[in-house]
């Protein structure tokens, strides 16, 4: 399927929740409202055939935090090698960032969502085990935010140069 066809199918499913569509061949994407994400995710996985979550990128855009899901079709048959897919962007307000979790749809989202929570502070509702994965368990703050200040000490060890 081409990105255009995927976008059409998502628009038919979610209607007004599709906020924007960008079909530039370099990086086609659909901007979606967070409330419609679970429904669209099931549709993309089961009906459209995007069975593979390649990457989940979290971005700090200032007033908003954004999660970009790069989805793709990965065929198991040897001749099914064409990699087609699309990215889905979901923006949430910085004050209360919350996106429905899709870790039961694509199992790889489990660790990706934990990492985005750890580094950017986006909460994924419905995740069974949303704890830090990369930073230490008792780390404070979300390091990849633009206004993050690293702590001066950690358990008594000096952390600055």
């Amino acid at each position, binding site marked *: 399927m081409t990105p255009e066809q995927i976008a059409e199918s998502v628009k038919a499913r979610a209607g007004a929740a599709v906020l924007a569509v960008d079909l530039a061949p370099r990086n086609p994407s659909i901007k979606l409202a967070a409330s419609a994400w679970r429904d669209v995710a099931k549709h993309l996985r089961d009906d459209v055939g995007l069975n593979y979550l390649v990457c989940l990128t979290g971005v700090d855009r200032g007033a908003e935090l954004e999660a970009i899901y790069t989805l793709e079709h990965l065929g198991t048959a040897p001749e099914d090698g064409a990699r087609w897919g699309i990215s889905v962007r979901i923006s949430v307000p910085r004050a209360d960032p919350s996106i429905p979790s899709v870790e039961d749809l694509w199992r790889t989202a489990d660790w990706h969502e934990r990492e985005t929570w750890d580094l950017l502070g986006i909460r994924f509702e419905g995740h069974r085990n949303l704890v830090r994965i*990369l930073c230490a*368990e008792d780390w404070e703050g979300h390091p990849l935010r633009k206004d993050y200040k690293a702590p001066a000490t950690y*358990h008594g060890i000096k*952390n*600055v140069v």
Partner: protein
Amino acid sequence: MGQSIQELNLNQDAPTRDNVLITSVDKLINWTRASSVWPMTFGLACCAIEMMAAGAAHYDIDRFGSGPFRATPRQADLMIVAGTVSLKMAPRVKRLFDQMPEPKYVIAMGACTVSGGPYIKHGYHVLKGVDRLIPVDVYVPGCPPRPEALLEGLFRIQEKMGRERILDRTREGVRPKILVE
């Protein structure tokens, strides 16, 4: 490099020189310790690969007595901290160091353990030098240091072992300090 046994021998009497060894207890014990320094496998990151290359056939650390890399700290003399220590890993490094029996030595291998390496400015989760955590005897700079550089670090440890004194049980004179500024 460690001394050979001929250098230890103070016996000048020609007929008996090859059979009767006269030396001090310190020199003999330091010689035996320096000739078989057993490192602990503590490879954390990229420097671990160069440590493995030093253990492999081309650079062969075994010819200097340090072939057996012990997995458990309780059987090791030397802890080669090879690779970046993150703050999540730091308590475990401290615990492993505490589990080593005396006399114990530490080589800080690679720029990351010496002072934080390339992660020094923006690495919020990186320990800026393992000497903030445990006392370090020898620093081996490089990113990563060549296996020959690690071998040079091992020779400095052997030289340091040559300066130990058996009656100084707590090693007050030779134990390095943790750098806390």
